[in-house]
């Protein structure tokens, strides 16, 4: 789960990492009162999940009350890469002389954490990594030992030659790490981490991603979740143990297993169709899951046909077949459904579906072709 900046800043503040004085506002009036409190000039920042808000005009400096009003009005309601701006962070303006980058994340290849710092802050770190990799220092953090003092010191010395500034940076990095592990984060990023004109090191922006798998340890974090329309559906699916992601094609997919679900989408595309969604009904499927799956897919108005592609392992094919029949009984199907069932208890499953309106497929390729055909081609 990716947090918005103002939420991430709450994590930072709780961890003791210095951030500017700032206030979340939802309207022009609130922006004016926040600016009155924080003083001018102040910065108005669109709170959106997508990147690149600066280039899109979502961050503006206001020097006067009039500017607060006009900028807030301009940014609120703005569309940034398909996301409507509904929240604004009003922040004191900070004068700074240097911009650093600092982050902690998981290093999948090394099965460790990695602390990454760069003196080239304020810009896209992927670009820095590609163009001037020597400007980045990566420090591997042992998962059992944790971040050590010599490591924060080394990172701080990489960013600054000034001892007082090194101390501040090292302290911030240690706090960032404690925040990372105690909240089960998968990314904690400060970009930019700035040196103010009065030599204070402070986090100007904040990015936090929480490990979704660890949410059971932090039930209160659910309160941070802000969902787009598509994400509401994804969340609903998740609550039923399904993985659903809406796409824009005509062929709805219901598949067991993430890899097979992706391969099914790929195959539909390869045969000239467009998948309407990714849907993994998961392991240990119950008939109930099929009901939810069919409901989810049919709620997408763009869907013209459904391809159910099941290869049984932990999933039993007879469970799937029963679920399909039950779904058809509960809410008569208006869409053609192509069904391919192979694996554990497949013989029983085929018997269950015999003589129904479900269209049988002999294999995955056959199913994909039939589903595209039923959807009326591409």
């Amino acid at each position, binding site marked *: 789960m990716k947090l918005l900046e103002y939420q991430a800043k709450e994590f930072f503040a709780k961890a003791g990492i210095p951030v500017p004085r700032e206030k979340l506002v939802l309207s022009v009036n609130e922006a004016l009162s926040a600016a009155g409190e924080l003083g001018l000039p102040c910065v108005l920042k669109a709170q959106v999940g997508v990147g690149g808000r600066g280039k899109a005009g979502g961050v503006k400096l206001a020097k006067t009350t009039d500017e607060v009003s006009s900028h807030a009005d301009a940014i609120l309601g703005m569309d940034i890469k398909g996301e409507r701006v509904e929240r604004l962070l009003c922040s004191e303006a900070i004068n700074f002389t240097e911009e650093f980058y600092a982050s902690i994340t998981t290093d999948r290849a090394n099965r460790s954490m990695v602390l990454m710092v760069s003196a080239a802050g304020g810009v896209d770190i992927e670009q820095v990594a590609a163009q001037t990799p020597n400007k980045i220092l990566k420090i591997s953090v042992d998962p059992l030992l944790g971040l050590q003092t010599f490591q924060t010191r080394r990172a701080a010395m990489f960013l600054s030659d000034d001892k007082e500034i090194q101390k501040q940076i090292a302290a911030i990095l240690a706090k960032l790490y404690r925040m990372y592990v105690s909240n089960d984060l998968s990314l904690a990023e400060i970009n930019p981490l700035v040196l103010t004109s009065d030599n204070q090191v402070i986090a100007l922006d904040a990015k936090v991603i929480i490990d979704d*798998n*660890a949410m059971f340890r932090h039930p209160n974090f659910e309160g941070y979740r802000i969902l787009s329309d598509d994400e509401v559906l994804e969340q609903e699916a998740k609550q039923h143990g399904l993985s659903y992601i809406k796409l824009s094609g005509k062929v709805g997919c219901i598949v067991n297993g993430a890899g097979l679900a992706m391969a099914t989408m*790929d*195959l539909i595309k390869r045969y000239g169709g467009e998948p309407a969604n990714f849907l993994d009904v998961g392991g240990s499927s119950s008939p109930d899951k099929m009901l939810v799956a069919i409901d989810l897919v049919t709620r997408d108005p763009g869907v013209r046909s459904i391809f159910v592609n099941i290869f049984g392992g*932990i999933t039993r094919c007879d469970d799937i077949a029963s679920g399909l029949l039950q779904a058809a009984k509960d809410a008569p199907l208006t869409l053609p459904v192509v069904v391919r069932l192979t694996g554990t208890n497949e013989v029983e499953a085929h018997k269950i579906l015999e003589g129904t309106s479900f269209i049988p497929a002999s294999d995955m390729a056959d199913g994909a072709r039939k589903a595209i055909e039923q959807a009326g081609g591409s």
Partner: protein
Amino acid sequence: MSIFVDNDTRLLVQGITGRDGLFHAMQMRDYGTQVAGGVTPGKGGQTVEGFPIFNSMHEAVAKTDANTSIVFVPVQFASDAIIEAADAGIKLVVCITEGLPVLDMLKAVSYLDKKGTKLIGPNCPGVISPGKSKVGILPGHIFREGNIGVVSRSGTLTYELVSHITNAGMGQSTCVGIGGDPIIGSNFLDVLRLFRDDPQTEAVVLVGEIGGCDEEEAAKFIRQKHSKPAAKFVQQELGKPAVAFIAGRTAPRGKRMGHAGAIISGSSGTAEEKVAALTAAGIPVADEPAQIAQLLKEKLA
């Protein structure tokens, strides 16, 4: 020979009294796996479907001399169960449970390394050496003993590919589902090294997907045979033909595709990158599952 499991595998099922645990304990026994019993804390002393139940892995290992375990316990307790198995002296742990927190897995993997215990998974279908032993939830009837090693990040997609291989008249030496989580115990490289040293394995099928750079690392490992034949690099070569399949060519960016590990982060982890890396390493990549058998036949011809 085979890798990970064989006729000497003696298995304990962690979480054996749950629905899935018990179902698959029976399935594995039916397949021929030596299932020595299971562990469910608080239910020790009982016998369920003929399986003796123990309270702890230490007790179970002491009484059964098992060397392998499979984990079906709920996610909140899964990393604890993995560590318990290693601490009790188990040499191979297969974790079926999915969705383990990343920080838990980092710690567990680090501890298991120290203990010299191998881990397959989590979020995996397990491992099967057809005709010898099955430790997992894979449907045994689609496999056939043979000379193809299969390693995959996926579950059902693996069955799909294996069925094509089997239907084409070929068999498998060992089939390993390494799991779809971002942090897993054995990655492609670990498994490829074992296949390299396994005389039964004559060719390898690698089934990858979006996310991470494990496929790229595997490609490097396999490629070195062609580019660096110097003696010091020999130990890093696969030395056997390989073919591949990559899922997720149509996956959108920034979305977790079912597997916690299947996500394109920023610009990295795309299917295109992986296909390109494999192709450049001389490994043919199938465009659809049904092609895999034909590619194998060409490589083995």
